[in-house]
């Protein structure tokens, strides 16, 4: 503030009143302070609501990630955790709670509360609200809102699809398009719309049950050759995570006509026994996961 002290020598009260007169100052209207206070409260509340959305998205990503196939896609749980952790949403949640704190801090009596208390209360409200939003099924919608726009963010379903577009690692995912009448092969359109002929001679009855249900599937196996479009399937798991019931029903009807029962109970070929982690996948397959 520019200091004007035109009447040094006079009393302070005289100087202040003279300056009020000279600069034609008047008290700022009360409504401005009330509005400012409400704005900070509203921004704080908004940050908490957005934090709740971020938490709902976090829950959605955690519960819809391929935990049970982590050893197939990433070798160990540790590297899988870092690949699958919803860091974007967790960071967003923490930032929004901090923004909420800053806004509450600047309300009339906000300074009386410590960061810990405000962050705990705001965090708890966000967690409860976020859990509610997730429970009502809005998690997916929130995850899809940012789309591919943020440079450091990809929705978890896109991330998971990329894990299953790695035939060289024995991982393939996509839509079952057609099953051969003899049951020895089927056609798969992967997530990049590439068409694959899948050799199914090593599959067990449970794998065929998954294929019969239709829709998207994940296949663990081995490419027949590096450049070919033929893939040797060892295990088939459903892509149930992101299929809502309506989508699943429509996919089921597409494949139902070409579905048949096959009773394979014996072991798989040496190709399949060589894939990682064979025993674990086999036990999962037998449990019908």
């Amino acid at each position: 503030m520019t200091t004007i002290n035109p009447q040094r020598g006079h009393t302070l009260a005289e100087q202040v009143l003279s300056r009020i007169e000279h600069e034609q100052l008047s008290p700022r209207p009360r409504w401005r302070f009330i509005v400012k206070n409400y704005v900070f409260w509203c921004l704080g509340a908004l940050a908490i609501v957005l934090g709740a959305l971020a938490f709902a998205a976090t829950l959605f990503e955690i519960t819809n990630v391929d935990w049970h196939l982590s050893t197939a896609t990433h070798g160990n749980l540790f590297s899988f955790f870092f690949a699958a952790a919803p860091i974007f949403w967790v960071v967003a949640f923490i930032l929004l709670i901090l923004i909420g704190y800053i806004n509450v801090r600047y309300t009339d009596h906000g300074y009386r509360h410590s960061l810990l208390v405000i962050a705990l209360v705001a965090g708890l409200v966000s967690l409860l609200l976020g859990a509610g939003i997730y429970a009502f099924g809005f998690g997916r919608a929130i995850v899809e809102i940012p789309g591919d726009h943020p440079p450091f963010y990809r929705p978890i379903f896109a991330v998971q699809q990329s894990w299953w577009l790695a035939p060289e690692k024995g991982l393939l995912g996509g839509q079952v398009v057609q099953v051969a009448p003899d049951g020895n092969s089927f056609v798969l359109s992967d997530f990049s719309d590439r068409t694959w002929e899948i050799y199914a001679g090593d599959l067990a009855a449970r794998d065929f049950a998954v294929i019969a249900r239709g829709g998207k599937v994940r296949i663990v196996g081995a490419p027949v050759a590096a450049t070919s479009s033929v893939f040797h399937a060892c295990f088939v798991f459903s892509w149930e995570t992101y299929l809502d019931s309506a989508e699943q029903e429509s996919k089921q009807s597409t494949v139902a006509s070409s579905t048949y029962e096959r009773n394979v109970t014996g072991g798989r070929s040496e190709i399949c026994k060589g894939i990682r982690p064979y025993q674990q996948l086999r036990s999962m397959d037998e449990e019908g996961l």
Partner: protein
Amino acid sequence: MSADPLPRKGIDASDEEIVRRTLLDKEAFTPLIMRYEAKLARYLERLGVGLLEDREDILQNAFIKAYKNLNSFDMTLTFSSWMYRIAHNEAMSFFRRKHARPQIILSEESEMLLTELRDEHADASRLTELRLSREGLAKAFQTLPPRYRDVIALRYFEDRSYTEMSDILEVPVGTVSTLLYRAKRALREALPDIFSV
């Protein structure tokens, strides 16, 4: 703020009544300025605003700011705390603007501070010696971070309660306690010859 149609006049009027009156008539601000002028000037001196002219400028700005923001004065606080807060913020702005270091001059308050800092480990003879040399204490006080100086000045020189300090510095009461504890420890550490840390 609830509008009281007939606020009391004169020297008996409370600060809050004068505030209400000032909103209607700026001349009513005078008793409030006179009531706090000396206290705040002393507080600014203790914060390290060494020159009289600087203190006058800061005070003038603080009262102008208070006048312009009278409608934001929260009646649940004391006017005193609110006014100290404004003066404190103005002093901090002054130090930032001028890149000035506070010039601490302690007088009779050094006694109180020494009493507070004294513990069973203090060397009584050295305490007496230091008491005779207020400059030593002022020097040590000056080495403290501004936040520590603030709480010590408010608590021991201005005799403010923890709640008032919380309102003046705009931090939670718990933070005031922590700052005060650390400030005293830092001051003892700055006087190693007197206090065994």
